[in-house]
């Protein structure tokens, strides 16, 4: 077996050093009822070629985003990833290292995390950021629980513009901690209802911009209302490229900003691994979940980086920790940092502007199809349209023509009664030909 270096002779020699007659001697503490003598009912080992054959066959049954006109977003976005990113993250020293518990021999990972934290703080317009969460949805749930610790209040209001999966994750996790979660009805412009739901027991309000329907909103008014009631404002962003064009959560008064960072450097990968971004105001740093990397000096006075404020964390505080998180999303954070370092402010702005422009082209092209109504008033690179036909059935039909038309809102939230609503996204990867193909196919489907 190619991954196992010991030979039968090695094993025999080692057993004799140990003083054991056979390998079974080393398993004597296992109760007899649980000792399985036979091999399990699973295939035997296989060579690289056989494994590759089986997996390639499975992969071929899927339709990758890059294989034709493609308009899905809704929390995960098709972007171009520079070749440099995937090369560097496959370097052994990054790929096969552990969490940087021994800082003297993990400065590579630690300095990257320090750069990552600084980049995330800059993008979100907040003071501090942690070293990543699993993804945007779990970051959102953790933010709500952090607000409970900061305010010592139990109620959270979730905007109707919050991604339905994020709302479900937050509801699942936060209600386990006996928080009372108010989920407002799905709405394309959702902020007025959020403001009306804030009271003096509210720990936090969670709003998303661009929201689940693509709507871009200045949430400053929500911030004012939340702060007047002593509540925190949590701003969620699922499309991180939008930070390059839109006012930052910090500028609009957010106390905590969380985001899905997948769009910067991380592939689609059917939903994971992704990278959750988590930033907040400096005064709340000791209530933050997750790992934090900080600057310090070594014994010779040279700058270095370490994991810090670990008294918040589970391995020190155990049941008093701010979160149970341990392993986070280090390698995806590295990919994010490299991609963003290649982009820089200039490149990120250009990329964001290009995404927005492509979406405007898509909007203009769809708007002239009779029966199709553009629902989202202000958008970044994604918007909602109402079709004259069922959206899920339309998507299914168009897949047969080689076009992935978008995400039917009913797939995210069947209970919302929006069966005719389709979410469509355009990015820098979308071409004029893609848009033209979608228009033709939609016209065909809607009987025009």
């Amino acid at each position, binding site marked *: 077996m190619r991954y196992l270096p010991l030979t039968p002779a090695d094993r025999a020699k080692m057993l004799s050093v140990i003083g054991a007659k056979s390998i079974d001697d080393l*398993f004597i503490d296992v109760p007899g*009822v649980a000792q399985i003598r036979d091999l399990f009912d699973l295939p035997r080992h296989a060579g690289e070629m056989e494994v590759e054959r089986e997996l390639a066959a*499975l992969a071929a049954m899927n339709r990758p985003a890059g294989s034709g006109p493609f308009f899905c977003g809704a929390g995960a976005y098709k972007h171009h990833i520079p070749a440099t990113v995937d090369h560097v993250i496959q370097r052994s*020293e990054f790929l096969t290292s552990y969490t940087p518990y*021994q800082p003297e021999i993990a400065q590579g990972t630690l300095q990257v995390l320090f750069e990552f934290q600084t980049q995330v703080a800059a993008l979100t317009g907040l003071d501090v950021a942690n070293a990543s969460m699993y993804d945007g949805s779990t970051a959102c749930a953790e933010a709500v629980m952090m607000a409970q610790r900061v305010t010592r209040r139990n109620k959270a209001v979730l905007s109707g513009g919050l991604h339905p999966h994020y709302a479900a*994750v937050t509801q699942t996790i936060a209600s386990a901690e*006996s928080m009372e979660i108010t989920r407002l009805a799905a709405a394309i412009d959702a902020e007025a209802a959020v403001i009306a739901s804030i009271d003096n027991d509210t720990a936090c309000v969670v709003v998303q911009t661009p929201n689940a329907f693509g709507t871009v909103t200045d949430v400053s008014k929500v911030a004012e209302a939340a702060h007047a009631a002593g509540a925190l404002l949590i701003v969620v962003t699922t499309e991180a490229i939008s930070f390059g064009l839109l006012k930052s959560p910090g500028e609009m008064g957010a106390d905590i900003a969380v985001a899905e960072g997948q769009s910067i450097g991380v592939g689609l990968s059917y939903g*994971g691994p992704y990278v959750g971004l988590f930033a907040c105001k400096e005064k709340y740093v000791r209530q933050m979940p997750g790992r934090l990397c900080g600057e310090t000096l070594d014994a010779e006075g040279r700058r270095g980086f370490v994991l810090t404020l670990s008294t918040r964390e589970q391995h020190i505080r155990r049941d008093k920790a701010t979160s149970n998180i341990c*392993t986070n999303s280090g390698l995806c954070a590295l990919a994010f940092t490299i991609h963003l370092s290649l982009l*820089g402010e200039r490149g990120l702005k250009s990329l964001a502007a290009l995404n927005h422009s492509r979406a405007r082209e898509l909007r203009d092209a769809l708007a002239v199809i009779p029966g199709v109504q553009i629902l989202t008033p202000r958008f970044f690179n994604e918007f909602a349209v109402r079709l004259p036909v069922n959206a899920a059935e339309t998507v299914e039909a168009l897949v047969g023509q080689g076009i992935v038309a978008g995400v039917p809102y009913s797939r995210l939230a069947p209970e919302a009664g929006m069966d005719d609503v389709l979410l469509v996204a355009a990015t820098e990867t979308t071409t004029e030909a893609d848009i033209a193909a979608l228009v033709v196919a939609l016209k065909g489907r809607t009987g025009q």
Partner: protein
Amino acid sequence: MSMNSVGRPTRPDQQTPGVGGSLTGARGLLQDEALIFELGGWDKTGVDLEAPKFDASDLGDLVRTAPMGLPGLSEPETMRHYVRLSQKNHAIDLALYPLGSCTMKHNPRLNEKMARLAGFGDLHPLTPVSASQGALALMDRLAHWLKTLTAMPAVAMSPKAGAHGELCGLLCIKAAHEAKGQGHRRTVLVPTSAHGTNPATAAFVGYSVTEIAQTEDGRVDLADLEAKLSADVAAIMVTNPNTCGLFERDIVEIARLTHEVGAYFYCDGANFNAIVGRVRPGDLGVDAMHINLHKTFSTPHGGGGPGAGPVVLSAALAPFAPAPWVVSGSNGFDLIESPEGDAVQGFGRMVAFQGQMGMFVRAYAYMLSHGADGLRQVAEDAVLNANYIKARLSKVMTPAFPEGPCMHEALFDDHWLEGTGITTLDFAKAMIDEGFHPMTMYFPLVVHGAMLIEPTETESKLELDRFCDALIALAHAAKAGDVDRFTGAPYLAPLRRLDETQAARKPKLTWKPVSQTPLAAE
């Protein structure tokens, strides 16, 4: 002085005194690399993009005008920056990485290649089900392997790491109690030797944590367990093999006692590598167990993630699993994302999408590569390697539990360092100068000055011997009074020992231009 045939010196002159470090801060070929923010890239970019057709005038004052403060670099500069940083890391590809409880095994590159097939790596999570049948089939096959290896009837695939899996398991348990009218149960029992994530997770879900004592031979104290089990106990969380690297001999009895009071048995599967292919947790009475795909099934640790933590579930807990899940029908596979009707016992949702698909592909490739026979050999070699290290090092160090074999990791205490003036930390840092990553230190908490060594099965005998020889030489040096070698270590790493106290006292968590004051402590 020795020279090669053209007269070039091949070894440094023993007489030459040290120069006290380089003039530039470099160490040999390791550059003293600045932060990305200090490389002058305020107006550079390493990407070429076409100009947009439309501007953003439609967004009015929603557009960001304030500068962000993000530097950019050309591709060669970016490449050099991150490759230089990479060289300051230790990695499993460089040497044995003996972190106990972390299972730092070789990460096969075939798995990386497979995860990057466009059909997996470039597959959107909301691709229509008809166009993602291969992904769903892979999840189904991986689930079959996990269920077969554990003798458990169900598995929740979506948790993103071990601790996330613990959360999933406890939420299943909570939902199951509530469904039986037992929602009043408030307590979770956790051994003193547990991973920190266990009590943290229990508290996260709103339970209060009661610790169970440990016997002198490093196992759960059955008498203490019996005394603490009651109708108020919702679950017990036990790691098996436990964090002392020992198999819980009374595991079947622990499960029986737990079930007798109506509680559930959560097993922390972090150490599954020791028993995979040989012992099935379902046979031991386990109700839920997370499996760290990044430990047992070789997906890379990536400097702190991403991991993946699917949770296998007993029949009693299976109905409470979170969405989404895969089902197979006459038209192929379907993904149940919004359960309706009878299925709505599930406790909710853990993540936005389906979980760590990229890790599923890697783990499945690993399983196929090993097969049932290879996986059994994995457990046997992992246990053999740990016992070999225990046998060799016990001559100079003090094993915490000398009697009987260990499983996949060997645990030592610091008894043997008494009187040397050298701590576990010093000893570990001196290992760095000898080319090895330190073992897990000061964990488990139940052993004084603990040193927990997990070699894994992917180490050759030669590498194990190199490692043991290095530690034995260090142990002799420690006992011979060569104190400076330890208390000042490491000397030869990219940096010397770092001041963690200072870092926590005045946290500086982001880079700021020099003119601004650093972040003040609260």
